[in-house]
């Protein structure tokens, strides 16, 4: 049985969860040795391409939630203790083939799921995921790996309580990324797919493909699509409103501390 949380019932119903708490938290299969009905916590995912403002929003939300007294754990792609370094090395070499890369990323994802997310949820943390396996499915599907194969691969993943999708035009994302790092990553521009020799065009074409994949996912998985090109403060206010309703937080006012004030532009 899921933990009851009487102190949070006034914020509206939990999404993706029936009142009895009987709805499964995975996509069809439990992880071996894990009974996912036994833990509470909340899993909140923010998806969006590089330059959509994900990381900024995660920093701000972490501060806001902590100030409201919630313990927060974060996760992201390529952050597992098991294989993150190996993936870095493989990406730098870029001789890796797409199936191998897909499965290395899956290893990275499940390592974090089992060693970071699940322990945090067991301790009633709010887990903020800076991207989730949806990005991994979109990337692999854009490279021609069958979608039903990919969904099968992630069948034991946990279903997030909320998934936000920060939607930006590829052109705007390109500008933001270029301003930030003065270059565009080989992989984020889909250079391995030989779409175009022109970096900008390759990036736009690749991100358009990614967007198609995300649109399909958004509908099926119930993403909350948001305008990632709106100001940081506007996006953050909307995120806080939704998360507050989910967690039963009454007050949604928030001003970033001095440490994070530079993000609030």
């Amino acid at each position, binding site marked *: 049985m899921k933990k009851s949380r009487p102190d949070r019932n006034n914020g509206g119903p939990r999404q993706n969860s029936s009142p009895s708490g009987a709805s499964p938290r995975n996509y069809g*299969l439990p992880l071996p040795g894990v009974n996912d009905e036994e833990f509470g916590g909340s899993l909140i995912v923010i998806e969006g391409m590089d330059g959509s403002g994900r990381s900024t929003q995660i920093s701000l939300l972490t501060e806001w939630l902590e100030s409201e007294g919630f313990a927060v754990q974060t996760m992201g792609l390529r952050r597992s203790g098991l*294989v993150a370094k*190996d993936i870095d090395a493989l990406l730098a070499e870029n001789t890796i083939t797409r199936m191998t890369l*897909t499965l290395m990323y899956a290893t990275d994802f499940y390592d974090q799921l089992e060693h970071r997310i699940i322990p945090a949820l067991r301790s009633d943390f709010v887990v903020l995921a800076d991207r989730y396996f949806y990005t991994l499915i979109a990337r692999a599907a854009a490279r021609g790996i069958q979608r039903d*194969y990919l969904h099968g691969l992630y*069948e034991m993943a946990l279903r997030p309580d909320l998934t936000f999708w920060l939607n930006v035009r590829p052109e705007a994302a390109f500008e933001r990324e270029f301003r930030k790092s003065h270059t565009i990553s080989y992989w984020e521009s889909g250079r391995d*797919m030989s779409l175009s020799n022109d970096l900008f065009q390759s990036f736009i074409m690749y991100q358009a493909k990614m967007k*198609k994949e995300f649109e399909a996912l958004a509908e099926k998985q119930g993403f909350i699509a948001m305008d990632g090109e709106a100001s940081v403060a506007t996006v953050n206010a909307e995120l806080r409103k939704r998360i507050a309703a989910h967690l039963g937080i009454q007050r949604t006012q928030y001003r970033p501390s001095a440490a994070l004030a530079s993000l609030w532009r």
Partner: protein
Amino acid sequence: MANESLTDTESISFEPVELSSLAPQLLEPARAYPGALIVVEGIDGSGKSTQLYLLKRWLEIGGYRLHFTEWNSSPLVKSATRRGKQRRLLTPTTFSLLHAADFADRCERQILPLLHSGYLVLADRYIYTAFARDVARNCSQRWLRNLYRFAPVPDITFYFRAPLDVAVNRIMSGRPKLKHYEAGMDLNLSLDRAESFRIFQGRILAQYDEMIESDKFVVMDGTLPVNKLQMQMRHIVKSRIDLSRFAPKKASRRPR
């Protein structure tokens, strides 16, 4: 992939691409290649590696075009596997995924290109090792079958079957130091490593037996004398695969 034909001068379209046109190797393989794949499977100590070695020597001496490949041999995931094993970070799921990544690398860079270029590929252990061992570790069968969908189906899968005691005794007499995961210690079957190994191997053996019919295994009696078993194996290979396809080309005379 369909989009690879796009060039800068063509108009860019983002019509959804038909799935069936993509990644044919992810479908049930239709053996659309001139090569052939022979696989040996069985628990540790069943004699499979010895038999595949002798088959390989026979073919090598005959000059046939062949390539030999082993389970868990690629440098790609070695550091991750070592790290995971040393620090005991591996769960049944990540253990399974790392081996799948390793296999995918071998499959995409060796096995498939060689099958397409007309080689006879000999594999010491194949995806059935993962099916048997990972199900014994409580991974879902359905998940595993999907995970390895990209693997080409072997032309012959020899399953070397030896009674548990025979196989375990062969291993224990030759190599008494069993490693943590190898002995299935992560499953808490027994505090005694040798006993845990025996129970784990028993579970794997049961999983192999389950696949005999569904995966069309050729069952070989691992208790027979080595040379007798090898003659059986060669006979089956000759009768099932047209080896002339892999025979050395007759040397044409070249003018000096």
